[in-house]
């Protein structure tokens, strides 16, 4: 490495070339003040606070934007430098309101800190008139006070260059300049996504949360933890005063690099919400009464004994949870397998990425995201199919936009013109359920035009010839008809994808939630392997996992066919290993998946269901059927934070502690095992799920020593090869990405380097097969479902935040203008929509984002989209076809 020698504050140093003076100084713990500097951004040198003196240069230089050079003699705190900084502070103070005593930022304001450090006079040295502005309150979560703004530009730059939304701008000029949204802050016309990343970087009190809790920062404690929402696994600090979470601050570094979304930043009010369950509840004569933990455990135990004696272990089933920790999921499946004696344990990964687990395991040998979140920015081609990334995984969405800003090409295929489509090189507005047709045609083009990677195919894969048989007749013209897009766009997309050296595919429910979901996933694997785009850095296949710990819940064996680490229950060696570890006999038969558990309950074959942190009354297809099934149970245990729609049907409710009250780990979508840490004690008499499960195991007669989550990790690491090298000490700082093969293994940044988990990558030709229920005369419209930015899953947590509810208050349906005209319905009308399974009411949103004859509904709301959705299953993995069903509009209500 090239190094240079220079002097800084009379200290001689030798440092690598290419650093700025500020970076060098910070490495040496020399404190140079800055307002506008952000290491993630190109330096503006706007605030001038970081000026330094360099011998032989006749003016002061901004250290943030000046490269250190050989022989420089730098003074960071000379008299002249200090005077210059004082001048800036004096000038700023002259037009700044003298309101520190009542300012929300008191105690965490850089202007205040530096004014003290540099001993500024409280009476302004300069007599400029103070600027007069109204406070901008249009955003629901924070306000802008332009009088306190020092125009450093951090908020604008973060919004423009990192979040890539550009909702903030400098308005007016010169003395009148202020920062605001377009058009007097009118949120209706703004593209602001309320991520709050501007607020997080404001050095003064100009941008502050609209908090109802009054707190001074010195009264609070901060606890670093992992976000409980989507699978990105953002790191942040819970700011707590008097056992109440009052704010969330993003953490720098992996994986979110200081960014958050609206849910992570602002939707934390559920933690201390008045509706939290604080004591066990037992239903008697149709009414819940408060109970002690022992009463609850005793009741569950007596029901367990009666039902087990009468109907056997396979009349029990459990729904584990993608929202709780790895350790809790591990213990939950251990409870079912080792204590109850059944493999009937599943969780809602069944409804999101079951097809990924099945499809990628077959083709590559491992069903997880092949690359890391940090690699997104280095993709040269990004192909997003069936993922509305900026809403479902907002931080990854921002990284994608950062990549395109650096020149990466973007292909988007989705039934809706999602936000990412606006900046795409090609947008393919395909009909729901036609992914395979599109992918086959793209492969047809790549094959015909000789754009595939022959060497990779011959050395790393098998059965390419079988694929060729299928794709060679699947022309773009044929696909264009099926998908409802232009053949030339398919050709263009194929050429762009094949041209990428670091081409990555990102997908989610648009690929997986189909009766052909496994085949859709296999098709993705086909095109990626054909172009040699798996098994290298920044190129791969990336299923974006939806919930905070859905990856971990799968890893921990919250699935009916596998023990932790995807070890098959029917493998004798594996069975023997777990029998030894848990000191019990285990069942070698694959258990039931969620749809079959519910059908089993409906048919009264499943008698006892234990649901931990899931809400099938909202999340699963055909709510009417779900309700009937749950009502047919002999006994239902629900463990949750709140009285959910599912909890209402329970016989016993066990109040669990939230992520802010417990220890453990979540595994994010990039396979990174990260810590969560308790910031407050459990609310009321609630208990962490891990403790509840272990106490219950003992109550049911299994001698389970009550372990801490760290001890549980040690136990499971011994018998889970991909987690073998994980322990709490190693993951405390950064987390580790599995597979972590031993205590010295550094974890795995991207999968399948050199060879696939299964050895050779397997091409599996896939025919296009139509969705099970397509429009007809009676039900002429296709309904597709999805997520929105502001809500998470069944809104049991996000729905506890007033501001979020004000933005997305109720179920809605997106309809194309011409479809709306045909039915004579208008924007914001309330209409009834029905399918063969049920009906629901939704507010009409007329938008040309969606194609004609297709309608969209978010799945978040109770008695909403899932009243209508189809229970048709993918035979391989049992994922329901949540993305396509036929509906009719029954007019206004």
């Amino acid at each position, binding site marked *: 490495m090239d190094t240079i020698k220079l002097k800084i504050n009379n200290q001689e140093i030798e440092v690598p070339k290419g650093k700025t003076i500020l970076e060098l100084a910070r490495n040496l713990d020399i404190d140079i003040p800055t307002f506008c500097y952000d290491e993630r951004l190109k330096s503006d040198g706007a605030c001038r606070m970081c000026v330094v003196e360099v011998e032989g240069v006749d003016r002061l230089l901004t250290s943030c934007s000046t490269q250190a050079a050989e022989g420089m003699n730098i003074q960071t705190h000379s008299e002249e430098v200090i005077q210059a900084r004082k001048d800036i502070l004096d000038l700023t103070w002259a037009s700044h309101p003298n309101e520190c005593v009542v300012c929300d930022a008191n105690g965490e304001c850089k202007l205040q800190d530096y004014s003290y450090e540099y001993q500024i006079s409280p009476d302004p040295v300069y007599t400029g008139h103070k600027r007069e502005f109204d406070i901008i309150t249009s955003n629901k979560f924070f306000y802008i006070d332009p009088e306190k703004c020092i125009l450093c530009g951090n908020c604008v730059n973060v919004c423009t260059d990192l979040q890539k939304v550009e909702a903030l701008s400098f308005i007016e000029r010169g003395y009148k300049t202020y920062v605001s949204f377009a058009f007097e802050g009118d949120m209706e016309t703004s*593209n602001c996504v309320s991520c709050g990343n501007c607020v997080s970087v404001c050095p003064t009190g100009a941008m502050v949360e609209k908090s109802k809790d009054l707190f001074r920062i010195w009264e609070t404690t901060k606890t670093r933890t992992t976000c409980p929402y989507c699978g990105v696994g953002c790191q942040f600090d819970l700011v707590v005063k008097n056992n109440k979470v009052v704010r969330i601050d993003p953490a720098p570094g992996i994986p979110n690099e200081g960014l958050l979304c609206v849910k992570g930043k602002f939707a934390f009010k559920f933690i201390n919400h008045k509706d939290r369950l604080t004591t066990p509840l037992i239903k008697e004569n149709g009414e819940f009464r408060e109970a002690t933990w022992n009463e609850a455990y005793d009741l569950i135990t007596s029901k367990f004994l009666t039902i087990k004696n009468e109907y056997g272990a396979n009349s029990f089933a459990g729904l584990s949870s993608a929202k709780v920790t790895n350790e809790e999921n591990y213990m939950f499946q251990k409870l079912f397998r080792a204590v109850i004696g059944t493999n009937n344990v599943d969780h809602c990964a069944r409804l999101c990425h079951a097809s990924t687990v099945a499809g990628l395991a077959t083709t590559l040998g491992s069903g997880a995201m092949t690359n890391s979140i940090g690699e997104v920015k280095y993709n040269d081609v990004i192909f997003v199919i069936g993922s509305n990334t900026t809403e479902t995984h907002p931080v990854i969405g921002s990284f994608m936009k950062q990549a395109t800003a650096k020149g990466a090409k973007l292909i988007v295929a989705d039934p809706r013109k999602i936000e990412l489509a606006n900046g795409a090189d090609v947008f393919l507005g395909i009909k729901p359920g036609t992914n395979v047709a599109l992918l086959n045609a793209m492969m047809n083009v790549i094959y015909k035009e000789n754009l595939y990677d022959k060497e990779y195919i011959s050395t790393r894969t098998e059965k390419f010839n079988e694929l060729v048989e299928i794709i060679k007749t699947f022309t773009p013209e044929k696909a264009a008809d099926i998908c409802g897009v232009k053949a030339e766009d398919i050709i263009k997309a194929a050429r762009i994808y094949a041209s990428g050296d670091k081409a990555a595919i990102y997908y989610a429910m648009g690929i997986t939630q189909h009766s052909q979901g496994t085949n859709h996933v296999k098709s993705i694997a086909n095109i990626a392997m054909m172009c040699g785009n798996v098994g290298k850095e920044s190129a791969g296949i990336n299923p974006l996992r939806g919930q905070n710990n859905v990856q971990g819940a799968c890893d921990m064996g919250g699935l009916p066919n596998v023990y932790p680490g995807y070890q098959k229950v029917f493998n004798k060696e594996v069975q023997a290993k777990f029998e030894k570890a848990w000191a019990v006999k285990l069942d070698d038969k694959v258990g039931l998946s969620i749809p079959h558990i519910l059908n089993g309950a409906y048919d009264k074959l499943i008698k006892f269901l234990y649901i931990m942190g899931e809400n099938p009354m909202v999340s699963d297809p055909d709510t009417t059927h779900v309700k009937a099934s749950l009502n047919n149970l002999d006994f239902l245990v629900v463990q949750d934070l709140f009285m959910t729609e599912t909890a209402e049907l329970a016989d016993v409710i066990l109040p669990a502690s939230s992520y802010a009250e417990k220890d453990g780990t979540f595994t994010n979508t990039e396979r990174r095992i990260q810590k969560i840490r308790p910031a407050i004690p459990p609310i009321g008499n609630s208990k962490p799920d891990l403790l509840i499960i272990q106490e219950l195991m003992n109550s049911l007669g299994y001698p389970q020593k009550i372990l801490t989550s760290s001890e549980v990790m040690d136990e499971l690491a011994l018998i889970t090869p991909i987690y073998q090298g994980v322990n709490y000490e190693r993951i405390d700082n950064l987390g580790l990405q599995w597979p972590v093969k031993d205590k010295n293994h550094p974890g795995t940044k991207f999968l399948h380097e050199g060879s696939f988990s299964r050895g050779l990558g397997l091409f599996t030709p896939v025919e296009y097969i139509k969705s099970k229920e397509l429009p007809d005369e009676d039900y002429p419209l296709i309904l597709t479902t999805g997520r929105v930015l502001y809500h998470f899953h069944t809104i049991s947590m996000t729905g506890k935040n007033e501001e979020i509810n004000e933005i997305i208050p109720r179920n809605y349906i997106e309809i194309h203008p011409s479809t709306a005209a045909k039915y004579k319905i208008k924007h914001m009308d309330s209409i009834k929509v029905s399918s063969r399974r049920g009906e629901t009411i939704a507010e009409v949103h007329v938008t040309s984002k969606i194609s004609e004859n297709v309608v969209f509904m978010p799945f978040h709301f109770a008695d909403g989209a899932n009243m209508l959705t189809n229970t048709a299953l993918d035979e391989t993995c049992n994922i329901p076809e949540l993305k396509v069903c036929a509906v009719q509009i029954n007019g206004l209500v």
Partner: protein
Amino acid sequence: MKEYVNIKLRKEFKSSIIDKYRDNKSPLMQILQESQKQFGCVPVEIQQLISEELNISTAKIHGVVSFYSMFSLKPAGKHIIGICTGTACHVKGAQRLVDRVEKELGIKYGETTKDGLFTLAPTRCVGDCSKAAVVMVDDTMYGNETGESIIKILKSYQNKKS
């Protein structure tokens, strides 16, 4: 927000203006100038249209529009009065002219009269200092102006109207 430019005009603006400039290196300024010329301002609807068509955020466009004094958000009057406030004109009493016109028309510097006839636009040196104080009305320049003479000029425009 009241709609100022209807759908038909927006479509025309897209095909005749935005499409004309969209492949230029930085088309925004040219398009904004065309809007200012055509509508006497850059209305919100036009900014939204440009935003959709060029994939530039409305905040950024609004930032540009509010930065340059040649753009306005609201429509300007039929005639633009520019009283030069450059150094030479200032010495020759430009401020008195501004005060006089403000009083006469009942508007402040930068505002538009209720009848939409005049906008008193902020104006810096127009480059003809020998004739200070200088007043521009639209593209016509008037030199050596005093309070009384300028009122006469305004009257002549008012009379044209009727």
